[in-house]
């Protein structure tokens, strides 16, 4: 009977299962051995009983040996069934785990390094992918463009209904053109009144994007005839869930929006919030009117380019139509139009650029982490070279040895990556909260499997390669040399590579720190921007008084009544209202000119922003009136329009604040209405912090009643909650039909305006901090290793009378050479790279000397400390101990 595992699989299987049979086999084999020994001893003349006793004693513990043999045989049998490789790997993995546990310091540093490096880079890649890299959620998004008009001053502007219809009809390079807009109105039924965002879009809008209603159908062309929008509506998902319980039979039900009734024909798909800039609750037909005033610019326009049409060709086509418009229509004179990929418009070139910068930083960090880990592994490998040499000469095959080292390194890599992923999973929600609502699509970020796979691959390859390094020595050098030299020769060889790796790390951290430093300077400047008003202790709430519910003559008195009641609320010190919510990103724009120096052509008018405000607003926002006066109840337009302008416009048009008082300006174009300047206020920066304060014209709500007004209340410190409740009550009492608005603090608006720069800064600065830590770990690890390896030399020198201080100095000097090299290389690398930040910086040069000097100082100081701390240990060496240790 042949008993050879690895031969007959059936036999092997039996071997695997027949534990008792195997045990008996082994027991019989041992028994036969003892019997033969007894025979020999008896032949030597020893009596049988004594021979038996002696043979058994010589054999030793039969039970233990039997168990060991049994385990061996069973695992052999198991391997022969095809999992030989697996159990080998499992054994290697157990060995690797023991190795790692034996050096907790090493394992801890490597684990932490990989956790930070992998965690941060995976989290960032996931964020950047969701925000920037993922295609827009529309069909063939690369063919979608946004079209915007250009004012005579070449500012981007929204589109009028007739202009949109011209493009739709006359553009030859597009498949279709769609227009959209949205406004806040009040839903009265079903349910309690609430504010809703009603979007308008033409029939064909969803089809152009390649979207289909989640339920029901989209608008038919007949429902979108000029001036005759059909009373049909598509519901947004949230409203559908909230007011109809996500009822599948909602089609055919009706909505009451500000007294007008709409029939529900379907439910909107996802993805439109990106296009409208906010969640749309209801979408109704636009019914664009070719006869409408071309001066009414309020539409956003998207178009789908015909297959194969380039951006340049489409732009030329658009220029052609815009030139025709400019030549044909008085209101379009001097205007033009431009288009760009829809993605750039929706995500913002700023965000896209910031995304790429962050991505580069994340890659740099992962790179540094890998460098660090390979450096640590290399340093460790040299100390293990003698161990490996010994095992080789003792008959360990090269392949099992290599496999074992591979498994050990891979175990480190997998462990670190696993830590990194849990770190990323922890950090990602924090990053999302940090970004707030200002960063589109941030909420959609989730740990990206591709990023995880790439990080794992990179880490395993790097650690595997570094872990294998000691076997190279085994192959090339004779094993005897490894044994004899205690690995010292080999260490000297690896030293140059490790020094280079540390230098690269220092260089990388210089680049990261510089980027962060510059963004930090920029952020500080941005948050110190004088907004022109003090947002602290200021509350805002939005009143929405739509055309359908309030005649324009009713709005003025209604707002006055709300203001009157609101001013009596305890805690409210000053109360006013404006048509433009500060920092909402929304602005009204037009053109004005000095009536006494009236240009002939509209394109020579001065572009301005304008606001509709009530008396008291300037005081509520702490805007000082520098000349003239605030509005009063008498400025109701009956005896001519009156306006207040800001200092900048007063300077530009009339030469100064006091000169402006009593002068007239002309509104819009040479035939426009005339308005008397009665006051001049401080400049106000309330659209984007990074933009210059605009030239602003304030008009009173009594002369031009606005459908949506934002109350701004300055309240006594500490009385915010009471004042907020009182203001809501005042609105309810004055206008029972109005949706009761939410009260927000104006400070939150300002914080939101800072959200994106703060987001970029915090991410990049945490990167830089991690990067610096990695560089410090690398440098101090290298010095510590060097000190340990040269203990003997130190001992000799000290026993020969060398001063400990001079030894420390020598060590630090050597390490600093590496650091200085890295620093210089980093600066050289940074000179071209920081240009990428230019577009993200606010009033900050990318070559600002202070930031650069600071970075050099930080890197210099930390690397010196990192080199000095371990070197100090060398000075404490007891020469006798060292010399006897080897």
């Amino acid at each position: 009977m042949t008993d050879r595992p690895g031969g007959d699989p059936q036999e092997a299987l039996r071997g695997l299962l027949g534990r008792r049979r195997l045990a008996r086999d082994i027991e019989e084999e041992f028994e036969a051995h003892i019997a033969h020994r007894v025979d020999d001893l008896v032949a030597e003349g020893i009596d049988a009983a004594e021979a038996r006793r002696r043979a058994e004693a010589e054999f030793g513990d039969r039970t233990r040996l039997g168990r060991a043999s049994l385990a061996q045989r069973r695992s052999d049998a198991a391997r022969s069934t095809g999992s030989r490789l697996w159990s080998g790997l499992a054994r290697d993995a157990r060995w690797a785990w023991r190795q790692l546990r034996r050096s907790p310091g090493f394992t801890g540093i490597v684990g932490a390094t990989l956790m930070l490096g992998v965690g941060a880079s995976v989290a960032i890649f996931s964020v950047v992918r969701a925000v920037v890299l993922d295609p827009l959620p529309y069909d063939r998004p690369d063919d979608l463009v946004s079209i915007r008009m250009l004012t005579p001053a070449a500012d981007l502007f929204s589109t009028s209904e007739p202009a949109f219809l011209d493009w739709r009809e006359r553009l030859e390079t597009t498949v279709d053109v769609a227009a959209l807009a949205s406004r806040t109105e009040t839903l009265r039924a079903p349910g309690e009144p609430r504010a809703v965002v009603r979007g308008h879009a033409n029939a064909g809008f969803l089809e152009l994007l390649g979207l289909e209603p989640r339920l029901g159908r989209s608008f038919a062309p007949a429902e979108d005839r000029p001036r005759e929008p059909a009373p049909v509506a598509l519901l947004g998902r949230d409203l559908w869930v909230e007011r109809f319980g996500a009822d599948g039979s909602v089609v055919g039900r009706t909505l009451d929006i500000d007294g007008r009734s709409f029939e529900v024909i379907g439910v909107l798909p996802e993805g439109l919030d990106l296009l409208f800039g906010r969640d749309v609750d209801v979408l109704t037909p636009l019914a664009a009117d070719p006869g409408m005033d071309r001066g009414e610019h309020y539409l956003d326009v998207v178009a789908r380019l015909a297959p194969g049409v380039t951006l340049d060709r489409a732009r030329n086509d658009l220029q052609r139509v815009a030139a025709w418009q400019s030549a044909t229509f008085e209101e379009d004179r001097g205007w033009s139009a431009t288009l760009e990929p829809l993605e750039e418009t929706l995500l913002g070139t700023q965000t896209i650029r910031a995304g790429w910068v962050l991505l580069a930083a994340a890659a740099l960090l992962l790179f540094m982490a890998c460098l660090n880990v390979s450096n640590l592994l290399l340093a460790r490998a040299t100390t293990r070279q003698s161990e490996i040499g010994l095992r080789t000469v003792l008959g360990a095959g090269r392949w099992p040895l290599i496999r074992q080292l591979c498994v050990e390194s891979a175990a480190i890599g997998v462990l670190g990556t696993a830590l990194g992923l849990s770190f990323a999973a922890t950090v990602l929600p924090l990053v999302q909260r940090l970004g707030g609502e200002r960063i589109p699509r941030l909420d959609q970020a989730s740990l990206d499997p591709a990023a995880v796979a790439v990080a794992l691959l990179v880490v395993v390859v790097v650690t595997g390669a570094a872990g294998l390094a000691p076997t190279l020595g085994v192959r090339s050098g004779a094993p005897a040399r490894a044994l004899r030299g205690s690995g010292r020769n080999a260490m000297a060889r690896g030293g140059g590579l490790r020094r280079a790796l540390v230098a690269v790390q220092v260089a990388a951290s210089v680049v990261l720190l510089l980027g962060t430093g510059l963004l930090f300077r920029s952020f500080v400047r941005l948050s110190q921007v004088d907004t022109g008003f003090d947002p602290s202790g200021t509350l805002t709430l939005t009143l929405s008084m739509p055309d359908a519910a309030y005649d324009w003559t009713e709005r003025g008195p209604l707002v006055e009544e709300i203001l009157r009641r609101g001013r009596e609320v305890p805690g409210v010190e000053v109360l006013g209202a404006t048509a433009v919510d500060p920092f909402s990103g929304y602005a009204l724009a037009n053109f004005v000119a000095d009536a006494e120096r009236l240009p002939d052509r509209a394109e020579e008018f001065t572009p301005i922003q304008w606001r509709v405000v009530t008396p008291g607003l300037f005081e509520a926002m702490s805007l000082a009136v520098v000349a003239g006066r605030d509005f009063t109840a008498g400025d109701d337009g009956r005896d001519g329009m009156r306006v207040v302008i800001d200092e900048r416009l007063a300077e530009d048009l009339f030469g100064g604040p006091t000169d402006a008082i009593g002068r007239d300006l002309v509104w819009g174009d040479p035939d426009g209405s005339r308005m008397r300047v009665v006051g001049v206020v401080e400049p106000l920066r309330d659209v984007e912090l990074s933009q210059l304060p605009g030239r602003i014209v304030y008009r009173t709500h009594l002369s031009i009643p606005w459908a949506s007004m934002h109350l701004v209340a300055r309240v006594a410190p500490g009385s915010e909650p009471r004042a907020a409740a009182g203001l809501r009550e005042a609105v309810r009492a004055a206008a029972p039909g109005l949706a009761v608005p939410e009260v927000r603090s104006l400070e939150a608006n300002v914080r939101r305006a800072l959200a994106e720069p703060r987001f970029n800064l915090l991410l990049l600065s945490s990167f830089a901090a991690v990067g610096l830590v990695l560089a410090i770990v690398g440098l101090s690890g290298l010095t510590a290793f060097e000190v340990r390896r040269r203990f003997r030399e130190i001992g000799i020198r000290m026993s020969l009378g060398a001063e400990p201080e001079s030894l420390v100095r020598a060590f630090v000097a050597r390490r600093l050479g590496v650091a200085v090299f890295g620093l210089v290389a980093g600066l050289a690398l940074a000179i071209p790279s920081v240009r990428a930040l230019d577009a993200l910086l606010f009033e900050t040069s990318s070559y600002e000397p202070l930031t650069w000097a600071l970075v050099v100082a930080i890197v210099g100081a930390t690397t010196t400390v990192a080199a000095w701390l371990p070197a100090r240990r060398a000075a404490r060496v007891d020469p006798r101990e060292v010399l006897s240790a080897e």
Partner: protein
Amino acid sequence: MVFRMGSGSMTRMDLIQGTLDVLVLRTLAGGALHGYAIARTIKGLSDDVLQVEEGALYPALHRLQGRGWVESEWGRSESNRRAKFYSLTPAGQAALEDQARSWDRYSEAVGRVLADAPRGNG
């Protein structure tokens, strides 16, 4: 892993694993043997210098069998007792040649180290 010297003398050596494997293989090169005979043969061939302990021999045999270098078969011994006979497989033959070469390298290396290193507990 080190050699344990017999107390003050070189008459007996406990065998380390890699060495034992190669010795077993070498012994089996002459033909199939049972475990006791293998131990006796090694002892005899080395002029009683190399002493194989049972605690090392059987694990080694089972290990070699696991690697497919030897195979085993129950049979009758010279003293007409039932015993398990081990014999070399072709893979075992190849392994023996390979191990013999690395043994030469090993003994040469050890020899050089011993010749080179300072004596005593430097």
